[in-house]
């Protein structure tokens, strides 16, 4: 086996963070310790208004005698504090972030400029539609693009994250069954054992019970086992395709057939939609309900854990149940809000994470139809290249071509050398890369789930592959003290849970 492209010992400027300017290993004080009473950073506009006292404005008994204690510091010290904190933080802009299923791709800076436009960012959500025609047009156009990408016929942009999209989709499923089978609506939803944890949690919150189906020896849904659990008490099935092992569910057409046969609906978890953009569509596979993670597939930045956006697209017959209001265009070129006839109701206080939606629309415009297909191709190419690079060095549970991500196992390393998946992850941090997803999916022992994404260059991939190969090779003399090159060493998670300190005020001695 020969390695293509440049030698991996050459630099990988786009994806290796070993040279990041982290500021050493001394802890940064909390903002509360930096506070100096009487210091101030704030200022307000001159208003020329009457200066009524607080006691004239607040009824007796409700006025706080003492103000809420908050840090008092100069703007300079506040900015320095947060700048130092950011130096203690890994990010996509610093280096490669192969966190499986999370799709940590590069986030184009163009979208930052869009999200900062006053004509978008300074619009009140309750302003009448005639004052917000630009926003409504943007949302309608984004919705149409998402319908095209998913092969669906209607969409809601309200859900603010993937899990919120899941629950929204399941409540649509519930409304559908309540209307179609009012006397005896089904009570169960089927989920494969490889599913994201949000799936079963969402099913419970939607008032359904979970039926788990096992994966077969190819890592896909065991269709025989699925048939065995299907009956008219099944409301539907939630599937991720490609699944969390990075494998395409090749029997999807048959799965759709047997689920529809018992009156169930197919729910598509869009966490991995980036793998199939422009190649195939959930609608063509037979899915009825689809959520999309715009912070994954459409390059909305993840923000350290949000905000994202989780729109839900559905087939024509389910459009009447979508959350309302939805923006629509009229024949005269104007736009207005309308609520679907049997809407499940609002799932967000306003119109969803609007500025995240504007970022996703920017990405659609910049990519075009061809560019979106290119995203899938490069993502799948990168994942397969890295899988091939690693397959002689790690256990590969399902040794066949993958889609946008793949799972390797450190079970052999653990057996032979006591090195677990989490140890591999921590060592990789020392190599200047973020770690893959660890210990998921649950069906794989010592799983490392790796998603390189399409925005990493072959050089970065080669460096990442070389680092992972070296870590496996060094397992017999594994350094249990890793990571050593990070702002803090391995963090004591057990102590955090046992001696809970959730605020500065709960610190012993404060």
């Amino acid at each position, binding site marked *: 086996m020969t390695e293509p492209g440049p030698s991996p010992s050459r630099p990988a400027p786009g994806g290796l963070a070993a040279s990041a300017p982290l500021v050493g290993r001394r802890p940064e004080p909390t903002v509360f310790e930096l506070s100096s009473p009487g210091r*101030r950073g704030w200022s*307000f506009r001159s208003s020329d208004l009457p200066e009524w006292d607080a006691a004239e404005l607040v009824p007796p008994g409700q006025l706080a005698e003492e103000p809420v204690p908050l840090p008092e510091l100069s703007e300079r010290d506040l900015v320095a504090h947060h700048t130092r904190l950011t130096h203690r933080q890994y990010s996509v802009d610093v280096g490669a972030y192969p966190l499986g299923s999370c799709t940590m791709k590069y986030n184009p800076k163009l979208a930052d400029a869009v999200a900062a436009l006053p004509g978008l960012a300074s619009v*009140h959500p309750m302003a009448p539609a005639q004052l917000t025609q630009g926003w409504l047009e943007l949302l309608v156009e984004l919705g149409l693009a998402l319908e095209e990408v998913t092969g669906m016929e209607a969409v809601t942009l309200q859900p603010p994250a993937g899990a919120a999209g899941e629950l929204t989709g399941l409540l649509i499923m519930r409304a559908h069954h309540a209307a179609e089978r009012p006397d005896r609506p089904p009570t169960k939803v089927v989920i494969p054992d490889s599913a994201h944890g949000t799936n079963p949690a969402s099913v419970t919150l939607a008032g359904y019970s979970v039926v788990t189906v096992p994966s077969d020896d190819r890592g896909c849904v065991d269709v025989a086992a699925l048939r065995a659990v299907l009956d008219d008490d099944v409301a539907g099935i939630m599937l991720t395709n490609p699944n969390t092992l990075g494998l395409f569910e090749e029997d999807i057409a048959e799965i759709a057939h047997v689920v529809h046969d018992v009156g169930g609906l197919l729910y598509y978890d869009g966490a991995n939609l980036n793998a199939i953009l422009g190649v195939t569509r959930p609608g063509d596979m037979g899915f009825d309900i689809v959520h999309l993670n715009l912070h994954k597939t459409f390059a909305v930045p993840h923000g350290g854990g949000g905000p994202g956006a989780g729109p839900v697209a559905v087939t024509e017959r389910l459009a009447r149940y979508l959350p309302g209001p939805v923006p629509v265009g009229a024949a005269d070129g104007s736009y207005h809000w309308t609520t679907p006839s049997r809407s499940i109701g609002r799932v967000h206080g306003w119109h969803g994470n609007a500025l995240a939606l504007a970022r996703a629309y920017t990405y659609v415009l910049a990519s075009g139809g061809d560019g979106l297909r290119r995203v899938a191709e490069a993502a799948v190419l990168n994942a397969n290249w890295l899988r091939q690079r690693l397959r002689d060095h790690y256990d590969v549970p399902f040794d066949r071509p993958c889609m946008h991500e793949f799972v390797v196992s450190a079970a052999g390393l653990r057996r032979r050398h006591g090195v677990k998946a989490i140890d591999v992850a921590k060592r990789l941090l020392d190599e200047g890369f973020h770690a893959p997803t660890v210990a998921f999916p649950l069906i794989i022992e010592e799983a490392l789930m790796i998603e390189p994404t399409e925005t990493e260059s072959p050089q970065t991939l080669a460096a990442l592959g070389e680092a992972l190969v070296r870590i496996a090779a060094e397992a017999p003399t594994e350094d249990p003290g890793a990571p050593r090159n990070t702002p803090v060493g391995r963090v004591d998670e057990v102590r955090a849970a046992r001696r809970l300190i959730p605020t500065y005020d709960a610190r012993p001695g404060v």
Partner: protein
Amino acid sequence: MPSYVPHTDAEIEAMLAFLGLSSLGELFSVVPEALRLAAPLALPDALSEADVLAEVERLAGANVACTGRGLAPGAGLVCFAGAGAYDHEVPEAVRAMASRSEYVTAYTPYQPEVAQGVLQALFEYQTMVARLAGLDVSNASLYDGASACVEAVNLASAATGRRGIRVSRGIHPHWRQALRTFAAGSGSELTEVALVDGHTSWDDDGGPAPAALVVQYPNFLGCLEDLSAARRAADAAGALLVVAFDPVAAGLLVPPGAQGADVVVGEGQPLGTPLSFGGPYLGLFACRLEHVRRLPGRLVGETVDVEGRTAYVSTLRTREQDIRRERASSNVCTNQTLIAVACAVQLAWLGTWGLRELALRCARATRYTRESLLALEGVEPLVGAPTLREFAVRLPADPGVVVDRMADEGFLAGVALGGAGVGAEYGDGLLVAATERRTRAEIDAYVAAMDKVLR
């Protein structure tokens, strides 16, 4: 072709050769032929960066934004609308820190050794939100105020084993709609409790004992509810008291936790987030320590690393969906971390006295606006209860039409209530808010325009 995919044609060929493939299409050979798209996606061709910006600027230009200051013509509307989304200053320091790409382009801190920045910022956020709420513990954020309210109701149901929820009609109408939506799945049984002259009337409704009473403070109409009455009613029913608060009004008011709230939720937008057409906003969520194991979403705790240095980490993870799966009481994964970080920067920028001053300035501007409007002929208070940073009036005209005509005068006059707007149960009216951004000159001009429109 976008530059975000870096591969050259030669590199693609080399990588395909390494895999024993001859074309990119072969990567998808596992996708059954019948399912493969026969034609490219029916989307426009890729645009250059400059062309994308021009197109989005065209759309932005088709909105009339709340960018008005000092009544310069054509500068956008001067904002007197609130209803849960407020036109506050966002200091440049907050904008700059919340734009740091290490914060913007990270993900959930699954590897704490390389995520101390986000984790410590969230720890500081949790501390400040807990102090504002007057409770022991805050989570690391939820999606928005509505979702925080839904999660609070779910927590109360799990804590009490009851399904009934009594929701004040002083709760934002959109939040009540969201509560109804999610109750279809959770099985919560919601009953709404009417307002009498702006205050929730907690008389026993004779129904089964509820899990929670839910009240907003100040409420949707801007009125300061009597939380001690709500606490008494909750005690009589053995229910939890959930209070939806306003983090700016908290600069003047006794914290809800000190007035008996078990769970405090809120919309964090007023602290560091622009109007943003409604999102992304920030769900505030705080509770008493006894409920911490039912806390929805992420929680950051302080601990140490192997060498004993202070470090931060996501903790009590066994509450969360990825571990508890179908037994989880919340499905939250991605939340609103970046907005929480902005809120933390804003709160530290304000500090103890800045938050007090902010609340005071909002209350003064609101009072001045209210008194000036009420001096106009035919304008009357919608309810009599005292208000703080927002108020509702009855107009001698259709409020929806008034809002439209006031826009021609350069003002977003407020939010129309009743048939033409939100919350039919309140009757026709106009909900008006004035923040620290409003000057006497702007308010005088607003009232003069209203006088003209109402004549």
